[in-house]
């Protein structure tokens, strides 16, 4: 079956946010019937470009053309009218509405009076054509990540989409779900859709895309290049700014393993003696039948880096909160250095040297409306208070904050400015300096490098490693498999609240992948 090919041209598009240039003279050509991957590291301008394509952002300069005709979007609706739909990374679904309601929400052809039976048949037809299975009448908050992904996809499909933009679509899926999703993407392209696939997972990109473009610092380093004969190595080099002179000549078609530059060449300290007593232990911890932890056993020793891998939303939050004392388990025990501290409350854990760096930097670990000094002493303000009235010693706090800002090279504000003025990377450095201060015995880090640029991520990793080298136990909870594989001595895999596997270096990647999908139990 052949379809007339439609072309979407991105012509010299630049986007400026004040001083910051997010996209600089970007040129791309996207065709229907193809999967076109757009790759680049964090902050390369991928998301900005996608927002321009989806009509969510107006470019400062440049034009978009459909079949050579310039178009300009005033809203996401305009883009949709031309058949361009975007599937956002965080889904943007209305949780309380059903899948079906979400699919038809905002659809141009939706009649004033809704005939739900008719709409259901309509969506069911689409499902059957793509061999999708989706419980249409369940509210979205009951759906799994994969089902949410399908919902957003169907939402785009019933809108007669010609160009479908997928922003890191596999980030929240298990390896197994991801594979099935990639097959679906291929099917869509053969049916004549143009798919724009944004990702930084190179093996995935090479397996699914017909063409690839590389963005770096907002510029197109590689445009519309065929993926035929392209090796991950050359693509990776391109992502970090070194375009190999002969991209075609690298004759290695097998997709090898790619490691983000921030994770390359890190010095892992030696693993501690497995017989040494653990700093912290969980024994049969249970936090609830639905979405909670079930019978979790866990141990971490001084100087050991233990990673907890798994797709996010499988009980990670409960895990870090139980281990840091914020959440009291409904069953099981928590021990610190052999002492039972179950249900003792976070202050006791803090006093015993347990530090926890939250994944949420903007509404948990810190807040945009707190000053840097307040953030820096968010937990230790009492230690800096002068008795008998517990008056804060603001001067000392300001002084020590200044020291920390200097030591960790935090830029973008002084001790009196608000956290909102810092970039994500700088804020994370500040939070890290807070948790590393004093003599921590155990540091729990949850998604420590999420959303950071290469430099900041690298800095975070190095700090974690040096803390481990100096004898601190590290618990790294992350949904980034590469990160956990590169940093951990011991790797636990969490799936639906249960520990699926525990393994030691060297790790068996396929086994870990299966455990993440809940397919294999035991070691």
């Amino acid at each position: 079956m052949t379809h007339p090919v439609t072309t979407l041209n991105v012509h010299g598009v630049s986007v400026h946010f004040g001083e910051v240039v997010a996209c600089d003279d970007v040129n791309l050509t996207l065709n229907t019937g193809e999967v076109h991957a757009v790759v680049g590291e964090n902050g390369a301008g991928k998301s900005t470009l996608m927002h321009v394509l989806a009509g969510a952002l107006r470019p400062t300069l440049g034009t978009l053309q459909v079949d050579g005709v310039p178009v300009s979007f005033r809203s996401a609706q305009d883009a949709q009218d031309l058949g361009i739909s975007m599937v956002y990374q965080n889904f943007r679904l209305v949780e309380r509405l059903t899948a079906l309601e979400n699919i038809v929400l905002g659809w141009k052809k939706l009649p004033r009076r809704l005939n739900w039976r008719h709409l259901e048949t309509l969506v069911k037809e689409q499902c059957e054509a793509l061999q999708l299975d989706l419980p249409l009448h369940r509210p979205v908050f009951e759906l799994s990540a994969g089902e949410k992904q399908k919902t957003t996809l169907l939402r785009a499909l019933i809108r007669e989409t010609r160009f479908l933009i997928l922003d890191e679509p596999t980030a929240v899926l298990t390896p197994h779900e991801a594979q099935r999703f990639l097959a679906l993407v291929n099917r869509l392209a053969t049916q004549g859709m143009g798919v724009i696939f944004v990702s930084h997972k190179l093996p995935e990109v090479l397996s699914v895309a017909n063409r690839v473009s590389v963005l770096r610092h907002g510029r197109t380093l590689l445009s519309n290049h065929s993926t035929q004969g392209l090796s991950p190595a050359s693509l990776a080099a391109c992502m970090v700014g070194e375009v190999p002179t002969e991209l075609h000549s690298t004759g290695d078609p097998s997709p090898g393993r790619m490691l983000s530059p921030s994770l390359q060449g890190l010095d892992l300290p030696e693993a501690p003696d497995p017989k040494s007593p653990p700093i912290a232990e969980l024994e049969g911890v249970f936090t609830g039948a639905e979405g909670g932890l079930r019978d979790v056993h866990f141990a971490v020793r001084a100087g050991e880096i233990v990673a907890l891998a798994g797709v996010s939303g499988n009980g990670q939050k409960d895990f870090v909160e139980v281990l840091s004392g914020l959440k009291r388990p409904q069953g099981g025990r928590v021990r610190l250095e052999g002492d039972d501290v179950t249900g003792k409350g976070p202050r006791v854990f803090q006093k015993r040297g347990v530090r926890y760096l939250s994944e949420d930097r903007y509404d948990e670990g810190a807040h945009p409306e707190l000053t840097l000094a307040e953030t820096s002493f968010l937990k230790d303000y009492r230690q800096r208070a002068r008795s008998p009235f517990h008056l804060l010693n603001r001067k000392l706090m300001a002084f020590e904050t200044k020291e920390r800002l200097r030591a960790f090279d935090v830029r973008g504000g002084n001790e009196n400015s608000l956290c909102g003025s810092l970039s994500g990377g700088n804020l994370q450095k500040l939070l890290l300096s807070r948790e590393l201060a004093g003599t921590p015995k155990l540091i729990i880090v949850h998604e420590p490098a999420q959303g950071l640029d290469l430099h900041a991520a690298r800095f975070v990793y190095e700090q974690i490693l040096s803390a481990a080298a100096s004898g601190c136990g590290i618990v790294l909870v992350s949904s980034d498999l590469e990160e956990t594989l590169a940093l951990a001595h011991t790797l636990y895999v969490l799936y639906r609240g249960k520990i699926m596997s525990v393994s030691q270096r060297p790790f068996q990647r396929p086994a870990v992948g299966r455990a993440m999908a809940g397919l294999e139990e035991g070691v």
Partner: protein
Amino acid sequence: MNASFMENLLSAGVERSLPLFYAATGETLSELSGVLNLGQEGIMLASAMTAVAVSHTTGSAMAGLMAGMAMGGAMALLHALLTVTLRADQVVAGLSLVFVGTGIASVGGAGLVALRQGVPHFEPWAIPLLSDIPFLGNVLFNQVPLVYAAYLMIPTIHWWLGHTRAGLNLRAVGENPAAASAMGLSVTRLRYLYVVVGGVLTGLGGASLSLAITPGWSDGLSNGQGWIAIGLVIVGGWRPWGVALAAFFFGTLQRLTLDLQGSQSEFLDSPLVGLFLRMAPYLGAIVVLVLVTRFKKRLGAPEGLGKPA
């Protein structure tokens, strides 16, 4: 207690719940779109006063009703301006509306107090046939026309929320404005619309107070009913039927305490009992509020409530 006492009580309870019902339904629409409007008490007062003023001047209760609704809409528009466009805190904006409404009512109503009940107002109108049904006929179908409008409104809003495009859009915009916006809905426009529609309904509630329940104007006429209405939205679970039942329950409770105070029994005449009867509606509201928040797992509050777009 005999049947005629029950009949009278329920009949008066239906009437009494009218302002609560309209205000709570208005608040429900506003909150479903994601905007908390704490100004109900002020809106009710201002619109009750306006309704009396216009009804008196024009000699038409209908004109008074319209004017009361317009006043409610206008005040809600101010709320939308503050919270949607100027992104003010919804709580404080609502409180400012209480001041403004109370002030307008009190200043504008200064000359109306003397009118007492000599204002054109709505009288009960028995629906032929239906009102002949024993017991229920008198309770449900021998009421002011505003009650019948409420009967029609409940199923209409219920149907409209679940079975129309506009209803779907409304539910989406209050739950997740970002997602709704990404789907091409205008959060700003929808919120303006429903905050104002909600205000019009609250205005209707205020007008029903001064044109039907206790005709005429006196300062502080609503006596906290606007606040109770906000509580009823929680109790009713943000659903039209739930809100209507909650309003009926409270209206009857209010009526019951009034009836008991007026009855000729020695026990009920004692001041201490009278005190508790007068406190009962407010204490009852608190107790129900606590029970609802305590025992319901998912409250049903729109996720986007209180958050700017």
